[in-house]
């Protein structure tokens, strides 16, 4: 298995002295190409810290983070920004859409920053919008769209281009459950095409779409469903529990 993301004994301490908080304590995790990992745990368990560190938005106090074989530690700011832009797609609770840009321009922006031609970036953006069923609103501005549509635009922006690592933090917050499932289908199909995804969620039904669920508590990985057995093994073995 080629690991797209590797965390090795990663710890993160916020603050220092008596008020120091151990957000993560020695967490190791490998996410391979094609693998979809869900991270669950109560609030304050370190889920979002793990995701921020995986995407180079935060640095570990100890331990190593590797994205597509490249260690993030010791990178220059410019190199790190490039890894974040080229290899990683993020979907966060805050959508951070740029109000002055249309849906298509928002989605094309990261590709243009990558140096892709405007024309190619636009074609990729339209394809990503089509994937989230929003081809029809490509020319609209964010404030002309519903909350659910804005969320799907943010998702299209994360999926645009050849990103190999997708990081999502409660990405279906503003969506109803049917559209929420559509988002999971999208993440799933990207993984089936060879991307790696890490999803932070408290929603078990969303986590059910993953290959592997890890559980955090107080910054420690307390359990792991492991990689899945073959499909259907549960039901052919008899009736549930």
């Amino acid at each position, binding site marked *: 298995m080629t690991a797209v993301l590797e965390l090795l004994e990663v710890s993160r301490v916020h603050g220092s002295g008596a008020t120091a908080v151990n957000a993560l304590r020695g967490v190791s995790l490998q996410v391979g190409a094609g693998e979809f990992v869900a991270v669950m745990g*109560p609030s304050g368990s370190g889920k979002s810290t793990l995701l921020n560190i995986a995407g180079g938005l935060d640095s570990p106090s100890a331990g190593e983070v590797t994205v597509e074989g490249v260690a993030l530690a010791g990178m220059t700011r410019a190199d790190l920004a490039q890894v974040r832009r080229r290899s990683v797609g993020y979907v966060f609770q805050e959508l951070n859409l740029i109000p002055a840009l249309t849906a298509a321009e928002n989605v094309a922006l990261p590709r243009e920053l990558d140096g892709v031609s405007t024309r190619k970036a636009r074609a990729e953006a339209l394809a990503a919008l089509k994937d989230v069923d929003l081809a029809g609103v490509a020319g609209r501005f964010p404030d002309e769209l519903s909350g659910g549509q804005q969320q799907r635009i943010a998702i299209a922006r994360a999926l645009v281009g050849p990103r190999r690592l997708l990081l999502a933090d409660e990405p279906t917050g503003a969506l109803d459950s049917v559209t929420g499932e559509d988002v999971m289908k999208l993440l799933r199909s990207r993984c089936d095409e060879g991307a790696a995804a890490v999803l932070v969620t408290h929603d078990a*039904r969303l*986590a059910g779409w993953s290959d592997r669920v890890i559980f955090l508590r107080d910054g420690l990985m307390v359990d792991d469903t492991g990689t899945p057995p073959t499909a259907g093994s549960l039901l052919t073995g008899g009736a549930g529990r």
Partner: protein
Amino acid sequence: MSIRQGILAMLADGPRHGYQLRVDFEERTGSTWPLNIGQVYTTLSRLERDGLVVALDGGDDDTHKPYALTELGRAELAAWFATPVHREDRPRDELAIKLAMAAEMPGADLHAVVQAQRTDTMRALQDYTRLRRAADAAGDDLSWPIVLDSLIFATEAEVRWLDATEERLARRRATTARTTSDGAAEAAATADDGEAVR
């Protein structure tokens, strides 16, 4: 699980023999509740005794004898669909009993029991989700996805209940810790008073 009513429902489509009934049942419920052929024949003979089905002529031998629904059977089936399944008619929940027992048992690690269960339930939820994805992709008829949705929502509810149990446990621990440290502070204060008096 009501094999009896299930068989009546399948016979509403037209006469079938025992083996066909078993195959149909498993197709509609995705082998979630596997039936053995013995159960099917036993149930059929009871249904025949009660006048809900009737054996027709035909078939090479007894095992291929087709059965048809009677008027009485049709009425029983209609009554089944018209009556909700009451919660108290369902079997006891072993897991709820287990956690209730663990909660009061000295030395039992309720956290560990909850976590082990959550991991297992989550695996089941992943499995059901995978199966439903496959069923959706294959464009299967309605019955199997309906059964899968039932399993998905039930396992989701179980995970949420386990989360709530864990939160309850954490709150209880925090309260106990506070009471204990209050007690210790009080004891210390009393000791201080003692010092002052002396």
